[in-house]
């Protein structure tokens, strides 16, 4: 690609982005992990709506709200080559499921250990053979398997730590849910995201009498969310 071509494409993209998302923070509520408004630092934190902060705002629209200002390109057959261009807002449709090959280091990063059953679960993650590529995907069966693997890791993760010795209450659940989510998701959870976790910990798991095991369910839930399973 020549410099002039690259420069032209750069100008076009800049114009299209501006037309799509004049204020990214308003659309996406921030978001770390190098997101459209993020700093690029996956561990960066910030206040709501700011770089690296919790993404608590649902995008008002998945599509551009203004027509991109880029030029049209007419092909040899007279057709407008930009007519079929996807109309999507900035930051939309970027998430992709992590491949199996990434999961060992991901569990290690979050839990400090790798669940033993992960080693024999390549097919659960639809892992491709060497030198082949398959876009990862999840189904009901595989998500259930992922939960089991996560639960196994979380049982070991919560086994000795003092934080998990007592039953969760509203305060400890909020603290631990946020902490786990930050660590697993590389961003601060939004209030509704953490609320789901707190409700799980404090009420929906009430029949589990073992506090460490109850925390393990909470931990496995965080690790079974799309926020952990995607990058």
């Amino acid at each position, binding site marked *: 690609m020549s410099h002039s071509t690259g420069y032209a494409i750069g100008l076009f993209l800049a114009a299209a982005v501006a037309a799509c998302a004049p204020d990214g923070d308003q659309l*996406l509520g921030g978001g770390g992990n190098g997101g459209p408004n993020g700093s690029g630092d996956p561990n960066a934190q910030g206040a709501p709506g700011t770089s690296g902060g919790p993404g608590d705002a*649902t*995008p008002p629209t*998945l599509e551009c709200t203004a027509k991109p200002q880029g030029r049209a390109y007419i092909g040899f057959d007279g057709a407008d080559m930009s007519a079929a261009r*996807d109309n999507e807002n900035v*930051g*939309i*449709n*970027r*998430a992709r*499921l992590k491949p199996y090959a990434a999961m060992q280091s991901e569990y290690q990063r979050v839990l400090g250990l790798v669940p033993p059953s992960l080693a*024999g*679960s*390549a*097919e*659960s993650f*639809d892992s491709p*053979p*060497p030198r*082949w*590529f*398959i*876009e990862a*995907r*999840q*189904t*009901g*069966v*595989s*998500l*259930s*398997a992922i*939960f*089991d693997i996560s*639960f196994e890791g979380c*049982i070991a993760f919560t086994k000795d730590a003092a934080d998990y010795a007592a039953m969760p209450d509203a305060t400890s659940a909020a603290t631990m849910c946020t902490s786990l*989510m930050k660590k697993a998701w590389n961003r601060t*959870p*939004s209030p*509704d*995201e*953490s609320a*789901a*976790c707190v*409700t*799980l910990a404090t009420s*929906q*798991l009430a*029949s*589990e009498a073992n506090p460490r095991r109850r925390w393990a*369910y*909470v931990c*496995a*839930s*965080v690790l*079974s*969310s*799309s*926020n952990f399973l*995607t990058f």
Partner: protein
Amino acid sequence: MSRSRDQRRVRLASEDGLRLSRRGILKGALAAAGAAAGVRLAGRGFEGEAQAATETSHFVHIFMNGGLNALFAGCANQFLTNGTFGVTSSNVKNVGGGVYTDLGTFGTFSPFALSHWGAVGIRHLNALHTTPQNLNSGGEHAILKDGSNCYLNELAHAMGGDSAFKAVYFGDRPPAYQDQPTYQGVPLQRVSDLGDAIKALGAATPDPNAPDRTLAASALAAAQAASKRQIAANPGQLTPLTDAYDTAEAGLRKPPPKPVTFSDISTAYGLGGKTAVTSYAAMLAGAEVMIRAAGTNVVNITDFGLASWDFHQTSGGASLNGTYSREKMLGTSGFGANRIAPIKTFIDRMLDLPDRNVVVCISGELVRLPSGDHGDGTVAAMFGKYVKQGVSFGVDSNARFNSSTPGVKPFWAAAAAALKVPGQPFGANPHPLFT
């Protein structure tokens, strides 16, 4: 976006069908230890497992992608006079009721299957293959797509019931090469590991260290709630996750069925303890697992490879399709796995159960012509306890269909009739063998 993803998912074309499939070269067996450990033998005695007061129906579509020669599907007699496709009096079997087939392959099915074999012609008028480059056309698309929907989960929806996994598929790519949309709450989901499936369905022996199923369902519901915003903002890749969460939760909340042991399944289908669905036999075994453990309505099994049954070879102008197809079915001459053996196993174990109405349909998307080329329809071999023996709109000696041969929707109407689906979800059924 999903199209390009599916294109990436498809492995290199296997033009002659002789190459090993991508899954066939998956290295490293998923050792049976995980799934086999701790499960107990149940034997074959599941005949008495009454899941409901009434008989449940299940449809298993075994798809030979690239084309199933009509000589196998019930019309072998049409090729006898001219010896087309190598058919001779010594390699053809008169099944009865006008059904003729290849003696060494389909002709080896059980007497019960042979006496409940209805061959049904489908004239869809598309003689092309559906491929990643031809997603919106071709025979596979014609047979499986109903507008933007897919007949497979349309049928699963019409069949009703309360299975958490109403429609599933086995294979290395989705039916018709693209993720099929959820139809009225019924997704079509892939199963890639039988051990996972048995555990997810609660059909394995309870493990005291495993998560409680109800609590796990609650935890997954919380995970889904926490994922809601991200899924909404990434519909291209993550929309199927919603179905996955729903299905996983629903499966966990269901009372566990009678145990389905992987060791029993592995022995019956000769899986050698491998839970990964990387073999043809594993796909048939998976169909049994999903029917017995999940009560799945519709199972699609598509052979590995891109149009891997597309044998165009000729000799002296005569098609060798019959010979190559037979060899592939039997796993001879370098074709690897025997396909007929696990199909027979499945049929032997599942077709004549007292509490289930299992309908097995074996088809490709195209019949083969004596010239070696494709026809513009297919003949499906349908087996089921309520299927009458016979041929409904077969092909002639040139493997051509009569112009009066019904199309695709009537085929699905026939399947619905064989399954005893109430009403006529696909319109009137013109095939009297299926009532």
